[in-house]
């Protein structure tokens, strides 16, 4: 007969081996345990929404009735209006840029404004090292995987994984696994912006040492990744130095304040296949 210590050891081994198999299956197939992940996410999104609702309710009572009595709600309205105008301005800016380029190429295609849906942030990531958020819009609202998420100040991130019916997970651009096609607005130097665990939290890679990139240059989405809408602001160059190899060392300060995300906009345009050289056109 097995004694208790032996049985505990066997149980420990069994649990570990089962999880190693689980991890191996995902690494091999690259598909992940979608169902387990989706079911847990779906079930938990209701709890998260309730918890977030409780906190917003308490905050709302304090802000609207105790602290400011009315002034706060007017301010909120004005902020919303300003946010929507800023998004419109960015859209116009991006559209104007695009039009100039397209005219140069005698391409007369016109693009309509981006269809978006507003969403509220209801939770963060349970793993302290990962930078994702959960929003209260899901497949029932037309949200799909890889749709981009923007805000009045610029690009925020993209929807990752299959969304639940009324919730979706958004990977922030500053997450260490996130990346976006980008170019500098002034010199049109193309590259890729990636997130990192540092300050500032963005780095622009694959920009040639020959490119003219200066501190303060605006960095915008190039659209080559097929996810982020072209022309939307990512941030400003904070450091630009000649690198040892072929590429420059560039750090970027994001234009979005990621520490206080409450409402975001999901761009309801399904991702298209990435293109090769759109950024430099």
């Amino acid at each position, binding site marked *: 007969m097995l004694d208790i210590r032996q049985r505990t050891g066997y*149980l420990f081994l069994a649990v570990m081996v089962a999880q190693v198999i689980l991890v191996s299956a995902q690494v091999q197939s690259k598909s992940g*345990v979608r169902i387990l992940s989706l079911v847990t996410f779906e079930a938990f999104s209701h709890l998260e929404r309730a918890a977030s609702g409780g906190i917003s309710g308490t905050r709302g009572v304090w802000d609207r009735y105790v602290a400011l009595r009315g002034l706060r709600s007017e301010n909120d309205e004005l902020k919303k209006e300003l946010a929507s105008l800023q998004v419109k301005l960015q859209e116009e800016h991006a559209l104007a840029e695009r039009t100039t380029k397209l005219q140069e190429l005698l391409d007369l295609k016109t693009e309509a404004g981006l269809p978006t849906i507003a969403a509220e942030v209801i939770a963060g990531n349970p793993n*302290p090292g990962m930078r994702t958020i959960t929003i209260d819009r899901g497949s029932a609202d037309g949200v799909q995987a890889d749709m981009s998420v923007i805000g009045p100040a610029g690009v925020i991130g993209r929807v990752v994984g299959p969304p639940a019916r009324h919730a979706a997970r958004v990977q922030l651009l500053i997450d260490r696994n996130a990346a976006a096609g980008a170019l500098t607005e002034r010199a049109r130097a193309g590259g890729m912006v990636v997130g990192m665990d540092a300050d500032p939290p963005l780095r622009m890679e694959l920009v040639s040492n020959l490119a003219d990139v200066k501190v303060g240059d605006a960095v915008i989405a190039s659209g080559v990744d097929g996810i982020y809408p072209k022309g939307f602001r990512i941030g400003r160059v904070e450091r630009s130095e000649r690198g040892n190899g072929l590429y420059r060392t560039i750090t970027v300060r994001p234009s979005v304040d990621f520490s206080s995300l409450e409402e975001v906009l999901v761009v309801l345009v399904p991702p298209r296949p990435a293109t090769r050289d759109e950024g430099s056109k």
Partner: protein
Amino acid sequence: MKTLAVLLALAGALVLQTTLAGLMTGGRLAVNLVLVAVVYLALAYGPVTGMLAGAAGGLAQDALAGAIVGIGGLSKTLVGFLVGILGAQFIVSTALPRFVMFVSATLLHELVFQALDALLQSRGFAPQYMAVLLQAVCNGVVGVAAFLIVENGPDVLARRRMRRASFAKRRF
């Protein structure tokens, strides 16, 4: 009853963790409440509960995080099991040894978790030492506080109730 308590503790820790993380989206939350719950359960109930709580909490955390499901599960299973074994071998009933246990468990967890993550995502192993240390200390403080509340909370409440009752008797 014990199973229900374990599940409630893990679910509560997960909800609180995601809610707190949602309030500070850009920063790195300096506490891992699911890990605190796993270590607490391992110290309170032993290696089997610690290991199973670690597996369940870790898998749920992975599934919610959108990461590879099993990395957190593996690291928390290991931590829960080891803490349970050590808790049964040594006297861990005062604040200091408990704090040391929470801090060591966090360091071990982060080491295993980040090494596995780097290996599976084909990335260099470059842990943020200060962030890990800060998380270890925060987990230690929260864990010790949880023990104090669970162990002394009912007594404090009972004493307050008795004091109120004796005041009421004196008045009338």
